[in-house]
């Protein structure tokens, strides 16, 4: 990297030196355009965050694009139901790289208060990779601003030679689930999500080991 002392000396002379990677990431993080995609109650807080008081536009999210072809970020705001899940994955597939997903609210993270439901998808991360999760029901608009800042920090830390879209073997399109007779098929995408370990499994193992 560049020597910091040299950098500050040059800055005093009016010459600014940055790396291409810094410039590339700065351009990307300062102009994240979200997709206009509100599902339920969290969508109202998302609109409030974009309104005059909390003003999402000063973070670069100036316009919410209506079409996924022009959007960088999908804020999944609200409960994803099984009837809607194929459309969510299809929209994500239609977004061009680089693309990010923010799961806003308890429902998008894990099903939320409606977890015990026959039509509720228990978390959008079962089918698509999520970059930032925001807990809350609904999260305050300030929480959404914090999530955008976290995403910006994540983008700053991405290295230009390790990007998913420059890698010929990485997946950018994810399989779309099908609504079948009783449930979605498949119930989850195994490459993206694994069920978490039940603590009672571990205690059973431990207690058998001890005895």
């Amino acid at each position, binding site marked *: 990297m560049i020597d910091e002392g040299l950098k500050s000396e040059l800055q005093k002379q009016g010459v600014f030196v940055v790396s291409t990677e810094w410039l590339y990431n700065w351009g990307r993080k300062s102009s994240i355009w979200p997709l*206009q*995609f*509100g*599902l*339920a*109650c969290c*969508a*109202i*807080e998302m*609109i*409030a965050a974009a*309104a*005059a*008081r909390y003003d999402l536009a000063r973070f670069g999210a100036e316009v919410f694009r*209506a079409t996924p072809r022009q959007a960088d970020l999908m804020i999944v705001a*609200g*409960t994803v*139901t099984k*009837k*809607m899940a194929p*459309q969510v994955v299809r*929209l994500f597939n239609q977004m061009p790289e680089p693309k990010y997903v923010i799961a806003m609210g308890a429902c998008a993270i894990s099903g939320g*208060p*409606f977890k*015990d*439901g*026959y*039509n*509720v998808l228990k978390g959008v991360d079962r089918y698509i990779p999520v970059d930032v999760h925001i807990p809350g*029901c*609904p999260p*305050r608009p300030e929480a959404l601003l914090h999530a955008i800042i976290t995403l910006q920090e994540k983008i700053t830390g991405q290295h230009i030679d390790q990007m998913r879209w420059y890698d010929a073997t990485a997946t950018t399109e994810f399989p779309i689930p099908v609504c079948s007779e009783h449930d979605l098929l498949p119930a989850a995408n195994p490459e993206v999500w694994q069920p978490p370990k039940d603590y009672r499994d571990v205690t059973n193992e431990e207690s058998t080991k001890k005895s």
Partner: protein
Amino acid sequence: MIAAPSTIPAGGAITTQLLEVSIGPQHPSTHGVFRMDVVLDGEVVRALKPVVGYLHRNHEQLAEKMSWLGSMPYTDRLDYFNSMSNNWAYALAVEKLAGIKVPERAEYIRVIMAELSRLQNHASAIGFLLQDCGAWGTPLLYAFKEREKILDFFETVSGSRMMCNYFRFGGVRVDLNDEMLAMARKIVAEFPKFLDEFEKLMTTNEVVLARCQRVGILPKELAIAGSISGPVARASGVEYDIRKVDKYGVYGQLEFGVPVGAVGDVYDRYYIRVLEMRESVKILQQVLRDIPAGPMQAVEVKLRGFKIPVGDGYGRVEGPKGELGFYLVSEGGPKPYRYHIRPPSFINLTVLEDMCVGHKVADAIIILGSIDIVLGEVDR
């Protein structure tokens, strides 16, 4: 899926075809995940079928597993713009079934919350309707500016901006002290000025008049037959406001008018909401002046182990979107046996096809906006 001929012979050498388009569930103007399958002849709508269920979160089944009070936070998430009105509808239905009497101060507090909720709902609804007309953001941002003041008040009172969970059976959860009442009075004092500004921008605006008048006319007989309620029905000439008919709460003692429209087009549905906001300000001024001292919750209602005698019953309120009712069946236990919500937005969609056929597809978007649906209520 929609029964319509696929080709129509035009007079002349050209044969045209009808085009079946699915608008939604992700679309910038569809107020949530709502899908319309339209059959188009050029730009003109020939048939329209709404497809709902993309937000069906089986609230009714969840309520059968939870206690009576445990469903109260879920009622917030029905019509997520007005959590206070939804809470009131559920509390009213339970109080009707169990025969609980609510103290007077609690009734006054309930009216304050419901009318403030109505103000911010109508302002947002007009903002979204004008956004659909093409006024990209300006009326919406004006409406959201007032809405933020009301949400600040809700947060001070109940702890949450939107999902307030404020009502209990027999009263409300937190009493209003003088500081909170002063906050409410300030909001009510500033609201007429905002309404004047809003109206100056829009009521005689050339574009609004051209786009909204004579579009989506709903005849009065169809409104009654289709069980349409709320501002949509009143704009078509149906003189029915549950606050005046059932006189629940203290509405029987308050003086306010009920605006009724003449034509029933989109412009009437917009203007009736403006007039209803003015009436709500009148109600709030009376209530904030006359609020009595007293308890805020009926003391004999148990919070733990609350049970209702065996039987069923139906309670309803005039929500900002229409008649919101709850049908509850009790088997005498701590949980409901059946919990059903009568959602105004769902039933108001019955006549969407009748209103849209013959208009252009851009008009269909505005007509949907003027019905003011919210998908949390449609799909539950």
